Every structure is written in C-alpha cells, then in structure tokens.
C-alpha cells in the first residue's frame, strides 16, 4: 500500500539545510496497523507529511497504492489525498462553524458527491463512531474525545486506502485515549490500513507494528506481541 525506498528530505535553513529524513525504506501492506515512534525532531511528522502528500520528498521513491508519486502539483495532490487518504490530527482540525455532520461531509463535497448523498453517508459514519445524536452540534459543543471521533469519521467518509493519524491522542486524557485507540483498532479490523504517528509508548503498543525513528533513520521495525494481534 505504502512503499518507500531511499527517501531523503531536507529543509533549507538560511544558508544551510536541515537534513530531516536520511534514506528511509518502509513498506506497509494493506490492512496493517503501523505506528511510527520517535521523539520530537526525529522526522516522524515530516514522514507523515510526505506520506500524506502534504509535502514532497527530495530523493527516493514513494509508491502509494501502487502509484509512483512524482511531479506532483497541488491539484493532483488534492485529488489523490481526497481519494486515498484520510487524516486525523492531534488538534482535531474541525471547522469551527460547521456542525459535526457538515464536517464529516466536507471531504465528500470535494469528491463531488451531491449534498443529499453526502449528508446521508456522513450520518452513517457518525453513527459508526457513536455520535449520531451529536450530528448537529458544533465542534465547541463536543468533548475532546468526541471531536476526535468526528475527525475519524471524517477521515473514513471517502473510504480511503490509508488513514493517517498524527498524534491522534496527543490532546486527550487516558480514558478518551483508549476509546479513540479502540476505534482505530476497530476500523483496522475492518481491513483499513492505519498509520499512526506518536511519541507515546502506550499508544504505539496498541498497534500491530512499531517503527522507531531517530534522527531521520529507522532504528527498529518490529511486529508487536501477539497479545495485541489476538
């Protein structure tokens, strides 16, 4: 599903450049539940941006769903994001003046689905994350856990190939963290590829494969204990 070979990325910093990713190789197959672990500055967010087509890499190859990603302009990237990727962010990133339902329906608007269909599908997904009754509430009327569940519903609504979660529990307490992780596990069980970025050990432990990143290189890549797999 995601195939990365010899990936390099550096950012210009004044006269010098900051070499963030130093030759990554990573292969994530369909249906995997992977976490990228690393402290801040390890390059994990940069990796997510590249995988999420929000940024472009300098050197190396990146295949998404069998498609080589190259010469990506903004328009193409937008279409691919809409089609293949679902995002979940640490700070939820819901649009504050839109209701939960409208937030979930938004990716479908950019996919060109008509309004009636959109709202119907969005409501189904809200139901799936257990927030059907909250459909017409604005984000500031929801708790952190509820907001993140709305965001997950939004990530799922276009039936993407991969869900990319950037510190999905970073802004949540431990109870809600568990409920959000349970939800991610559940969608993974339904066959969705889930790609989580985190610096929390407890979060990483709940995934099926942990890739550790340090200073722009992969230092370990292990399948976690069968307890989780079971």
């Amino acid at each position, binding site marked *: 599903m995601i195939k990365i070979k010899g990936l390099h990325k550096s950012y210009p910093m004044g006269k010098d450049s900051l070499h963030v990713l130093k030759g990554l190789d990573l292969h994530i197959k369909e249906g995997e539940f992977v976490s990228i672990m690393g402290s801040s500055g390890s390059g994990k967010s940069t990796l997510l941006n590249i995988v999420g087509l*929000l*940024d472009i890499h300098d050197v190396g190859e990146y295949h998404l769903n069998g498609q080589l990603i190259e010469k990506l302009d*903004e328009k193409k990237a937008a*279409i691919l*994001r809409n089609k293949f990727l679902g995002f979940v962010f*640490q700070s939820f*990133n819901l649009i504050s*003046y839109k209701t939960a339902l409208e937030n979930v329906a938004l990716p479908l608007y*950019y996919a060109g689905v*008509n309004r009636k269909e959109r709202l119907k599908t969005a409501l189904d997904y809200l139901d799936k994350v257990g927030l059907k009754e909250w459909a017409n509430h604005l984000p500031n009327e929801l708790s952190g856990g509820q907001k993140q569940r709305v965001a997950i519903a939004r990530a799922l609504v276009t039936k993407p190939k991969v869900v990319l979660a950037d510190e999905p529990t970073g802004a949540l307490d431990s109870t809600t963290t568990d409920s959000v992780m349970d939800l991610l596990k559940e969608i993974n069980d339904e066959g969705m590829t889930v790609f989580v970025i985190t610096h929390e050990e407890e979060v990483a432990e709940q995934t099926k494969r942990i890739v550790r990143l340090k200073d722009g290189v992969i230092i370990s890549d292990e399948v976690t204990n069968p307890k989780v797999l079971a």
Partner: protein
Amino acid sequence: MKTIFDKDTWQEIYGTLRKNVMRTIITIIGVMWGIFLLVALLGAAKGFENKFNKDIGDLATNSVFVWGQSTGMAFGGFQEGRPMRLKLTDTKTIKDQISAVEHVVPRNQRGAHVVHKFLDGNYNVTGDYPLLDKIQKKNLLFGRFINDSDIDESRKVAVISQDVYEEIFEFEEYPIGAYIEINKINYKVIGVIKKSNIQMGPRDDIHIPFTTFQKVYNQGDRIGWMIITGNSESDISQVEADVKLLLKNIHDVHPEDSRAFGSFNLGENFGQVTGFLTGMQFLTIFVGLATLIAGIFAIGNILLITVKERTQEIGIRRALGAKPSEIKIQIILESVVLSLFAGVLGIIAGGGILFLLNSLFTGPDAVLLNSSVTISTILSALFSLVFLGTLIGLIPASRAVRIKPIEALRDE
C-alpha cells in the same frame, strides 16, 4: 467553470457567510454605503433636473430675443449712431427668408399706470399676438389668453399676471369681466396668468392685443423686440447670426456692425444651465463610484484579513482534498456575493430614501420632482459590482492558495 453553476458551491458559500454574520455585515457596509450614495445622489440630481424642466415647461428653449439699438458704423451714406427701429414687416421677411426659423413673435411694451377701483400700480403693458402662448406657454388661473378675434377687432381686453391681480383686486374678487384702467383707458380683463418660476426677458405684467397697443400708443408698424424660435433641427446660434445679418441688410447697416441690433440667446443660456445639471450628475456619479470603489477595496481588505484568519480552515480543506482552484473560486465567489448583496441592500436603501424624498417634497413649490434612477443605471451599477468584486476577490484568493496545507495545519 462548472463549479459556478453547481448548487453545492453556493450552499457552501451561503453556509460560510451565514455562519460568520458579524464579519459579513462589517464587510458589506462600505459597498452598501457607496451604492446607497450613488442611488440617492443620482436620484436627487434627477429630481432637481425634473424640477428645472418642469419650470421651463413649454418655454421654447431654442429661442433668441432681438431688438434694435443704434448703429456703430457709418454706412450707405448714413452717419454712425442712427437709431434702429424694428418693423412689423421685418418679422415676415425673417420668417420667409430663413428656413431654420419656426416662429417670429413681435412685441411692444411700455410702462403704464393701472387703476382698478381704489387700488392702483405701475406695470409693464405689452402688445402681444396669440402666438406668444405657443412659445411661452401661459398657464391661466382664470379666463383665456388673447385670441385672433381680439387682434382682428383691436379689442380693449387685457390678460393680467397673478401679481397684478393680487395687487389691484380685492381678496377673492372675481377678475374676469372686470374693468381696469390702463393709462386712463378702460380694458376688460379676460384672463389671469399663473405665477411661473422662470421669467425670460422683461417682466410681463399685462398683455393686451398687439393691434390695440399699436392704435392706442400710435406705434405704426414699429415693434419693440421680437422673439425668434428655431425649428427642431436648427442651431439657434446660427439662426441668431442669420437673423441679425438679414436685419442689417434690410436696414442699410454695415454687415460687420455689431452694435445696431442687440440679442439675447435663450438657447445658449439654457445650455449653460443644463450643462450645470450634467456636471452635477457627473459629479454625483464620480462621488458614488469613488465611494463604491472604496467599499469594494474594503471588502477585498477584509477578505484578505479573513483569509489570514481562516488559514487553518483553508489548510483543512486542502488536506481533505480541495483543489487550489476550488479554494480560489470559493473566495472570489464570496467576494462577489458580498458585493452583490451589499449592492442590493444599498439600492433598496437608496430607493427608500428617494421614495421618502418624493413623498416629502410634493406640490408646486417642491425643490425636487420625481427623484428617481433608471433601471439601466441600477443594472450597470450591479454589473460593475460583480466585475469589481471578482477583481478584488482575486487578491485574497491568490493569497489563500499560497497557503500550504502543512503550514496551515501546524500546531501552535
């Protein structure tokens, strides 16, 4: 382009604007005010013009007054300083020889002491033909103007002005059929002319038949002055020059003698007034448009600020799959919708003010008459709003697409 006709695009824009009501209102105030000023001022200017045109009424504006003075050059054996006297036959010659002339109306006038019962006054008495009524429409309060029979029979009848009526008649006394004494001769009053706001030439107090004037004051065929009107295609300044040249020819005056005949060109003077009105309208349009443009800039400015404010929102939309063009079109359409909405509100407010003006200023002494703007003015204003709104929307729109989703989504 498809997106413009897509109902969903509009729903999205409607949703965005409706849910930011305060921002929307503040944004549109400038344009609203601009178009309000434009409509209100243009309407008021139109009302002023209407009022002016009504006052002018049926007064032939393409007319010129000509009178005799005295020669300024010796010519044909005559000394300089010879007094010029226009003759009744001159009017016929002018009418026959100059094709651009429509009417030639001779007039004679003198001062007179007028008495009615115990009241009296000094007034101008003019000998007139019924034709005068054709070029300077007389609105009558009572009775009628001089007619052909009055001329033919040299009747001793008089048409008096409202001022004269009010001064020498008792309050609410019925004037028609009453007798007034003009320089010791009795005349029967046959009409009273309503006051008019505009008076051209010497004050007209009392009109008597031209032929009566001739006989009573022993005028022979001499006339005081004449009013000449050009027909619709004529250039009144050209008519003026032609008439004076012809008169010099008839009266043996040097063709280049500029003193022999005096004239007053009503058309030219009228042109100056209408020029002033046009200027006022131009000024109004200028002020309105300038305000409008300032308002549009305010919209652009505020949208630019809101783009900055909405960085995160735009980033989210981009991450969720919005193409740059979709973001751009949304911002531009927001700008256009705001401009148009503001415009419509401004037009309604301006129309309301004009309606108010019209209902406040009624009656004959109103300063403004039927203040209004044309539909085409409204439509072109709206069209320029769409155009300017699009143009100004381009600035925040291009700013919005420069925002990289990753920058927009970066956590603080």
